[in-house]
C-alpha cells in the first residue's frame, strides 16, 4: 500500500474509537511531556550555570605569568619548560602575541598598585586596579550603583563599597557589612577624588638605547629611571557590592579605574623593582596577563599554546570539566526519569493496538480476503501506532513546554520573594523538540511491533469466521 493510503486508513481507523485512541495518545503525550520538561530543566540549569560562570569571568580566563617571576618557583608544574632565565619576558609584545592566538578574545595586563587618595582633604591608602572595557558585562558589576566607565581612558573611578564606606567615615562593623550600596553611593556619585601616584620616567637618553641591547648585565644607565610624584582628579561613577577578596583577578581592588587610563599613567609597578634587568626598558613589562578565551571549551588548547611560548599559566579548567560531567550525569538521570513515563505510555499503545486487533479481527479477515497481504496489514497497524506517536509527541512537546514555563514562572516568583534576580532555569532547544517527537514515534512504532505482527499472522478464514 502507498504511504498516503496507509496514513489515510490509519487516521480513519483511529477516528473509529476516538476515546480509546485519544486516551492512548494523551498517555504518550504525558510521557513525552515529562521527558521534555525534565530535559529542558537540565539544559536550562546547565545554561544558567554556564552563563553565570562565563559572566563571572572565571571559567573563560587564563592567568599568564612569567617564568622569570621566581616567587613560586617550587611549584611542581613550573619545574618543566625553559629555565627562568631563558624564558621570555611578559611584556607588551608578548601580550600582543597572546592576543593574536586563535580563540582568544582579549589579553590584558593586570595592572595594580597601592597608592593614596584624597577625598574631602582626608587621605586614604588602598589598592587600585585597571579594568578592561569588556568587564562591563561581568557579573562583578551586577547590583552596582551608578554606571560603568564611559570610556576606556576616562578619568573615572568605581569604588568598592568598603572603600566607599571608609571615604564617608562609616567604618563597617566587622561581621556585619550589610551597609546598603545605594546608601553609600548616593553622596559619592559624581564627586571628585584625587589620586596621588608615582609615575615612572626614563632617565635621560640612555633608556632609548637600551631597547636594542640584549638582556643581562648592561650599562648601569639601562637600569636607571626616575620617579615623579603626580596627582590625578577622578570622578566617582559607581559603587560596587563586590567583595575585594574574591578570586576575580583584576577586580581584586578597592578602587577600579579604566585599564587604558592606568596604562597611560605609567605608575611604577612592583615588577620594575624585582626584575631590575628590565627596569630601564621603555617596553612595559607585566607581572600578570589575563587571557579571555572565546569558549570555556577552548581553554586547554589556548593554555597549551601559551605554555609553549614559555609562560606559566593557571586556569579553572578542572572546575569546568567536573561541572560539565555533573550536568551530563544530571541530564542522563533526568532523561531516564522522563522516559519512565514514556515507557508506561508505550505499554498503553501495545494494549490499545492489541484491543484493536481483537475488535477488528473480522475487518482484518475481510481485508485479507480481498487481497491484503500480511505486509499490508502489518503496515496498517504500524501506521496507526506511528500516527498516535506523532500526535502524542507533538502534544507532549507542547505540554512539556507549558510545564517548563510554569516551573520557570513559579521559580521566579519564589526568587522575587527572596529578593533575588529572576533566572531562566528552563530552556527548550529546537533539537529537543524534534528529537522528542521522533523519539515518541520510534517508541510507538516499537510498541506496535508485536500487535502488528500478530494482526498480520491472522489466518483470513479464521478471522472471517469471527463475529
Amino acid at each position: 500500500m502507498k504511504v498516503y493510503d496507509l496514513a489515510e486508513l490509519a487516521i480513519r481507523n483511529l477516528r473509529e474509537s476516538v476515546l480509546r485512541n485519544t486516551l492512548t495518545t494523551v498517555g504518550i503525550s504525558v510521557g513525552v511531556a515529562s521527558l521534555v520538561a525534565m530535559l529542558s530543566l537540565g539544559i536550562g540549569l546547565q545554561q544558567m550555570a554556564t552563563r553565570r560562570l562565563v559572566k563571572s569571568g572565571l571559567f573563560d580566563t587564563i592567568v599568564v605569568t612569567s617564568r622569570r617571576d621566581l616567587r613560586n618557583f617550587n611549584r611542581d608544574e613550573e619545574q618543566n619548560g625553559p629555565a627562568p632565565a631563558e624564558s621570555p619576558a611578559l611584556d607588551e609584545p608578548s601580550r600582543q602575541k597572546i592576543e593574536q592566538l586563535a580563540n582568544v578574545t582579549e589579553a590584558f595586563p593586570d595592572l595594580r598598585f597601592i597608592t593614596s587618595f584624597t577625598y574631602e582633604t582626608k587621605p586614604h591608602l588602598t589598592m587600585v586596579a585597571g579594568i578592561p572595557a569588556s568587564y562591563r558585562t561581568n557579573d562583578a558589576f551586577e547590583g552596582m550603583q551608578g554606571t560603568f566607565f564611559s570610556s576606556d581612558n576616562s578619568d573615572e573611578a568605581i569604588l568598592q563599597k568598603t572603600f566607599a564606606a571608609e571615604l564617608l567615615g562609616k567604618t563597617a562593623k566587622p561581621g556585619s557589612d550589610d551597609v546598603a550600596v545605594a546608601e553609600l553611593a548616593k553622596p559619592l556619585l559624581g564627586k571628585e577624588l584625587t589620586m596621588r601616584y608615582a609615575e615612572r620616567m626614563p632617565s635621560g637618553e640612555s633608556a632609548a638605547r637600551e631597547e636594542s641591547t640584549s638582556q643581562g648585565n648592561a650599562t648601569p644607565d639601562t637600569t636607571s629611571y626616575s620617579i615623579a610624584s603626580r596627582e590625578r582628579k577622578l570622578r566617582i561613577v559607581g559603587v560596587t557590592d563586590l567583595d575585594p577578596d574574591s578570586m576575580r583577578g583584576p577586580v581584586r581592588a578597592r578602587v577600579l579605574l579604566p585599564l587604558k587610563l592606568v596604562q597611560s599613567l605609567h605608575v611604577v609597578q612592583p615588577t620594575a623593582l624585582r626584575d631590575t634587568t628590565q627596569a630601564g626598558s621603555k617596553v612595559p613589562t607585566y607581572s600578570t596577563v589575563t587571557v579571555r578565551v572565546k569558549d570555556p571549551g577552548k581553554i586547554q588548547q589556548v593554555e597549551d599554546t601559551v605554555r609553549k611560548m614559555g609562560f606559566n599559566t593557571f586556569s579553572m579548567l578542572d572546575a569546568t570539566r567536573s561541572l560539565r560531567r555533573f550536568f551530563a550525569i544530571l541530564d542522563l538521570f533526568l532523561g531516564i526519569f522522563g522516559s519512565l513515563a514514556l515507557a508506561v505510555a508505550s505499554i498503553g499503545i501495545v494494549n490499545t493496538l492489541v484491543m484493536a486487533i481483537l475488535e477488528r479481527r473480522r475487518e482484518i479477515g475481510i481485508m485479507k480476503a480481498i487481497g491484503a497481504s500480511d505486509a499490508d496489514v502489518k503496515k496498517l497497524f504500524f501506521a496507526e501506532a506511528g500516527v498516535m506517536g506523532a500526535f502524542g509527541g507533538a502534544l507532549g512537546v507542547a505540554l512539556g513546554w507549558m510545564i517548563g514555563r510554569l516551573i520557570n514562572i513559579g521559580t521566579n516568583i519564589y526568587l522575587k520573594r527572596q529578593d533575588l534576580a529572576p533566572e531562566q532555569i528552563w530552556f527548550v532547544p529546537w533539537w529537543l523538540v524534534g528529537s522528542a517527537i521522533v523519539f515518541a514515534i520510534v517508541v510507538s512504532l516499537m510498541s506496535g511491533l508485536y500487535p502488528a505482527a500478530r494482526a498480520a499472522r491472522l489466518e483470513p478464514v479464521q478471522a472471517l469466521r469471527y463475529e
Partner: protein
Amino acid sequence: MIATPGTKLQVTAAGIQTENVCRHYVMGQNLIRAVDGISVRMLGGEFVALLGTSGSGKSSLLNLIAGLDRPTSGAVVVEGRNLAKLSRAELAKHRLYTVGMVFQSFNLIPNMTVLENVELPLRFAEVERARRDSLAREVLDRVGLSNRLQHRPSELSGGEQQRTALARALINRPKLLLADEPTGNLDSRTGTEIMNLIRECNEDLRMTVVMVTHERALAEQYAQRLVFLADGKLVNDQPNDQNLTSTTAQGGGSREGV
C-alpha cells in the same frame, strides 16, 4: 503436495482443478474432515454450483479455491498454479488479482463508504487515487449503485450491500468469481437481482463462477453444472441440462425460458 503419484495434473489455462484435496481440522480430541479427498475439475468460463447440506464441506472447498485457506494435503490448481505451494504473499496476490469473492454476510467494512469499500482492493494493488476512483464508479454503475457512493453499509438495504460486495469483487477484473451463499441473507426478489448480476459476470465478462448454495432450485436455475458434496466428499457431479445449451453457445447467447 500433489496427490496421487503418477496422475499428472492437467492444467487448463483459466480453470480450477483439485486433486485429492483434504482440509482437516483438529477440534479438541476430534479430527474434522471438512474436505476429504475431493478431485474435481472446472473449466474456464463455467458456472458451477457446489451443493450440499451444512457441514458438507462446500464452503471449505470454496475457501481453498479462493486461497483463504490451505489444504492439509492434495493440490488446488487455479490458473495453472498450485495454491498449496504458494507463499503467504503469493496467496495474497492470488486473492487480490485472480479471485473475486462474495459472501453471504456481505463482509463490507462498516466505517467505509460504498465507494471506499469498492476501491479498497485497488489500494492494496497500489493503483493511483484518480484511477481508483473512476474504476470504482464504473463498476458501481454496472451494479446500479451510482447513486449510493457516499453511503455507509449500514445505510444500505441487504441487496444494495451485496451489490456493493459484488462490485468490490469485480473491481480488479478477476478471472474467477467465488460466491458463498450470495443470496442467503436476501429476500427472493433481491436474490434474483444479485443472481442475474452474477450470471452477467459469467456470460458477458466470461468469468468462471463457483457458487456455494444449499438451494437446489437456485443452482438449477443459474448453474451449468451441479457438484454435490456430503461429509467432505464429492458425491455427485452432473451437468445441468437446463442451462447447458447456453454454455455451448459461448458467444453469450440469449437465455430464454430462465
